């Protein structure tokens, strides 16, 4: 039904994520976090997410780079659905035009 490797990854993800959810409550509730640690933890998700899409910023295809620039502008201003529509449409059109 479900692949054992996929199930293993899901169980490990779920356990790891649950551990992050209870850790602050269990271990840090009576302590004040240093501002430095707070700022590192606040920056963490953005650091990971931008790293995942870093290769898109050095694509060799001009069409994709222009589409990405349009997508950045859209993402800074619009909610998820219009952003994705603009991203997909501009990538498709620019690839048709520029190859």
């Amino acid at each position, binding site marked *: *039904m*479900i692949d054992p490797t996929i199930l*293993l*990854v*899901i*169980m*490990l*993800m779920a356990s*790891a*994520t*649950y*551990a*992050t*959810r*209870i*850790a*602050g*409550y269990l271990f*840090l*509730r009576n302590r004040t*976090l240093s*501002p*430095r640690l*707070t*700022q*590192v*933890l*606040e*920056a*963490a*998700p953005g*650091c*990971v*997410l*931008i*790293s*995942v*899409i*870093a*290769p898109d*910023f*050095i694509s060799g295809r001009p069409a*994709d780079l222009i589409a*990405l620039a349009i*997508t950045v502008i*859209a*993402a*800074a201003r619009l909610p*998820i*659905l219009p*952003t*994705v529509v603009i*991203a*997909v449409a*501009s*990538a*498709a*059109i620019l*690839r*048709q035009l520029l190859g």
Partner: protein
Amino acid sequence: MTDSALPTADNRAEFLRGMRVSFPVLLGFIPFGLLLGSQAAMKDFSPLDIALMTGLNFAGGSEFLVVQLWTWPPTIPLLIGLTILVNSRHVLMSATLAPTMRHLPRRKVLPALALMCDESWALGLDDARKRGGVLSFPFYLGLSTGLYLSWPTSAGIGALVGPILGDVTRYGFHMAFPAVFLVMIFGMWTGFRAARPWFVSLVVGALTYLAVPGPWYVPAGAISGLLAAYLWARPE
């Protein structure tokens, strides 16, 4: 006693109030879930796989990340390490929520924290501050339940209908992923100064991608950014 396990009228009212407050946020979850499901389907995850992942893990950033970096066989230590990194802010969130839950026993708090996401945390904390710093437990549960249920449901539906839509949008679909990631990143934007580590991650991630084959550009970029955040941190 609004904290009683018994469903009193008061508890029910608080639960419903939580659901009402969460509703606009829930509507915002659905397109993310649909996209996650459709992108998971493109990586050959079944609707059941993705419903199980989103239902048990319930942290969107890490799920988009695992789907994006998915290979066969998967690089499990990398995926789990990045899951921990991207979700490490939960530590901060549950630590700041803890003082509002002093009146609650651990056996209630620990299961309830499984439902804590950015949105339920922010709305719950905001409500607790308005009530003298005490979290209304049934309100939090009402808040979390609708949000929680919408996530695996929309992701599962996305995986079912995604393959149909996938063909229509094939030509530009590769840009959907950066779009989702960028929307999540801008959602966390609090100013240029706080965002500087992200630029470090971007540059180091891109350079590592050019230099080293495989998915190692992600931990390289992420760790450089964290290091930058540590060094740039303001002491106050």
